[in-house]
């Protein structure tokens, strides 16, 4: 799934990945997990869904699949995927062709380009959300993940 550069040299934009520490990429069905002890620099691409618990720096391109950044994940990369979920920390731009979700434990600084964006209550986000390339959503289809308890109406 991943192209690896085992020389340990830092790749330049768009070049092959270099594995900083020994990689343990466990494949289970259609989902690949990058464990918490793994650091990867470079470009990740492929055709599986991906769960990242480790550190990735570079670019992640899985346009037809989902990318999930686990609570232990630390990403410094632009991410291109069908759907993206962030529970850990991510610094970069998120391009989701279907949906981007920042979970309550997620911390993101970057720009989001996606037709649907969900910020769960407690999520940290700083950046921009571009809602240009989407059909106009109706009220009924709007997704609200953090409906508050109504205390009083002022």
């Amino acid at each position: 799934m991943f192209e690896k550069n085992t020389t340990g040299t830092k790749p330049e934009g768009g070049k092959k990945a270099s594995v900083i520490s020994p990689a343990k990429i466990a494949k289970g069905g259609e989902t690949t997990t990058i464990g918490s002890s793994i650091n990867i620099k470079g470009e990740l691409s492929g055709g599986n869904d991906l769960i990242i618990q480790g550190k990735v720096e570079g670019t992640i391109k899985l346009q037809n699949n989902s990318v999930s950044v686990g609570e232990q994940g630390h990403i410094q990369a632009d991410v291109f995927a069908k759907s993206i979920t962030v529970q850990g920390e991510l610094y970069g731009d998120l391009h989701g062709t279907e949906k981007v979700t920042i979970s309550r434990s997620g911390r993101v600084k970057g720009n989001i380009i996606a037709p649907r964006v969900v910020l769960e209550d407690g999520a940290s986000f700083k950046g921009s959300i571009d809602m240009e390339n989407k059909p106009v959503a109706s009220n009924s289809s709007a997704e609200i993940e953090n409906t508050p308890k109504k205390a009083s109406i002022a």
Partner: protein
Amino acid sequence: MALFSPRAEEPRDNRQVVSCPAFSSLMQEFSDEQKYRILDLGRARGGTVTYFSRFRCKLFVADVIPDILSYQESLPEDEPPELMLQEMIGLDDLSELDLVLCWDILNYLDAPMIETFSTSLRQLMRNGGHLHAFINTRSEMPAFPGSYQILDAGQMDVEHQAGNRISAPRFAQRNLREMMREFEIKHSRLLQSGMQEYSFYCL
């Protein structure tokens, strides 16, 4: 400057739903056709993102209020503030804004800071752009700014951190006009919550 604001205390029990008729009026002017550029100075809230998803827009989430307050606190007495808001926010492409959501911060700034804040903010906005804000009219207010999110065009949910209350500056309209010379008041409504809701537009 911290990458992220400190995570808010949870659970929160100081939640309130407030009406916002002036905001509702403002939103009725928004069309589905035009693309808008909107800045939320507060921290990211899902309801606000969801609400603006019905428009073609680019929503900037600045999460900059703690930084502005820290800057104000760090200023030596009698030193005039010089707020570089764009640098403080640190986001690319932040210009020609159509709408700025300025929720609760004005209650926590002193008059000289509001003047420089207003000038700095105006530089990021297009002519005729709008600013929406709440001013506390009661004698006391929570010690820290609340976090607002839109429930619908006429209602917002406000979270305040539990804690002490402090005296409120209770800025009157004439004070705001003097401090915010780059803006004109468009709508102003006194709400049952004790907040005065304002929408401004850029001169």
